[in-house]
């Protein structure tokens, strides 16, 4: 009986194991600069949570890794992918923000400094385990062995010189309250983190407000960038991602402002038509439902007043 069970287990289990390979292929996007571009889909068993853009810069002093991906398995694959590109050791990790798709690969980098804004570390401390649990639910086995590793070091906004690259670190907050954007002044590459989504609907679970986000976009756009790496979606050499972000944030804001004026309920706003011009942006309906949950209570409360006696 037992061999039979074992055989059956192997039959079902082996193909599943064999598929858990992220097949990361770094693509060079500028001098010394590499990108691992994720899909613009949602978290799913099929993609293992690889929906995110991860970058690294091969400096004279070692490799600066920007974000670590959605799982321990991804972090390990990222490390191997870096080793295929360069012999240089990893010098440090910079985390753009605390969301799970950007930081749950940290376990593969515990031998190097993992750095983030102070606010990012605090948010990860508060929310990391719950976010990791949800990732297990959404992408399943890919997450096996993944645990939250908090950044060991705090970075301050300012200029960071590493191995011949001059990195300008900006401490912003429109997406999560603590968002690090990194402009490599040496190459002109702007790692915008999730302050910029392109062709993929933006997410708002920790956003302090869409107005804050719009201000951050203004700050980023004025920088001397030549290439934008969004947190999600394709890279761009023009300002199309900024234009789309402003348009989309403006639309989201007007949906909720007008909804609050009319006394709309959440479910009514979750069903509003998505403008045709966002047809090329993935997951708009899904993210609208989420954003209404996150943000509408604030808009609605502004239209209510104390009426108790």
């Amino acid at each position, binding site marked *: 009986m037992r061999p039979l069970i074992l055989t059956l287990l192997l039959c079902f289990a082996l193909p599943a194991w064999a598929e858990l390979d992220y097949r990361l292929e770094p693509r060079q996007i500028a001098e010394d600069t590499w990108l691992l571009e994720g899909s613009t889909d949602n978290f799913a068993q099929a993609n293992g949570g690889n929906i995110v853009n991860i970058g690294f810069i091969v400096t004279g002093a070692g490799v600066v890794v920007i974000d670590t991906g959605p799982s321990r398995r991804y972090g390990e694959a990222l490390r191997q992918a870096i080793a295929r590109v360069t012999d240089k050791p990893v010098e440090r990790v910079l985390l753009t923000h605390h969301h799970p798709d950007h930081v749950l690969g940290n376990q593969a980098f515990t031998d190097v400094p993992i750095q983030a804004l102070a606010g990012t570390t605090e948010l990860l401390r508060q929310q990391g385990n719950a976010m990791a649990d949800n990732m297990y639910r959404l992408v399943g086995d890919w997450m096996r062995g993944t645990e939250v590793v908090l950044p060991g070091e705090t970075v301050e906004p300012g200029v960071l010189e590493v191995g011949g690259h001059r990195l300008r670190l900006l401490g912003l907050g429109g997406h999560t309250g603590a968002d690090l954007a990194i402009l490599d002044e040496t190459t002109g590459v702007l790692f915008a983190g999730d302050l910029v989504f392109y062709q993929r609907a933006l997410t708002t679970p920790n956003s302090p407000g869409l107005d804050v986000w719009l201000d951050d976009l203004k700050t980023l756009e004025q920088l001397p960038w030549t290439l934008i790496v969004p947190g999600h979606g394709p890279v761009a050499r023009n300002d199309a991602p900024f234009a789309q972000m402003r348009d989309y944030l403006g639309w989201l804001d007007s949906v909720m402002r007008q909804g609050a004026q009319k006394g709309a309920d959440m*479910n009514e706003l979750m069903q509003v038509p998505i403008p045709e011009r966002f047809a090329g942006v993935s997951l708009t309906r899904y993210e609208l439902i989420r954003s209404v949950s996150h943000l509408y209570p604030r808009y609605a409360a502004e239209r209510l007043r104390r009426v108790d006696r």
Partner: protein
Amino acid sequence: MDMRSLLLLALLGLSGHLPAEGKDPLQSAMWDFYHRRLLEGAPVVFDQRVRLEVPPFAEDARQVPIHIDASALDGEVVKIIAWAELNPIPHIFTFHPGPRLRPLLAIRIRVEQATPIRAAVLTRDGVWHVASARVDAAGGGCTAPSVVRAQEGWEDHLGQVLGGRFPRGEFDRLRLEVSHPMDNGLVGGIPEFYLDQAELRAADGSVLGRLELFPAVSENPSLTFEVRGDEPTRLWLRDNSGNEFEADF
């Protein structure tokens, strides 16, 4: 389903003026149980004229918005019961809208896991018209620590009501948010403490509609009603500790 309701359904089906469908569209294992427990086994039709709107997934399992509109059955509605089938506390509310209230209610609820949600509308002829929806969820909404109680001085805000009145043609929409922890007894040794009664009253004190609430309702309950005309309306609330609150719209 018992023989009697089957027969009744068959008769209704033959008479042809009800979009009767005898089978649970969600095929939930718990349907029969709640049909007996909350609807007392009375005749039921799954009726698309009852609109039940829920998001396909709960972004926040502690605050899941549901919107029920039985206007298509206006004039016939006796009461509306809503429940979340796989919740530890399934019953959400029982609503008795009077003739001047629209049979419409929006409210936010807690879900402990992915669950079918039902809205059952009893009409004068003794038939329950049921709408069904499913909400996916990471869960934990019923057993999550209280957000209200984590705020210092929350007791000072107990029973405060934020409200707004939004004219919408024949009806005015009333939206309100009540400060109350709505403790459901499932969290860390905190006993049940929740708003269990609400009434909307006209200026002369007459009752426009009555609402029984259960602690599947979220903390700081958020409610939407629609009332005919623009007369001043008063909301009366009571919790299970006997605290009473009133607000004017």
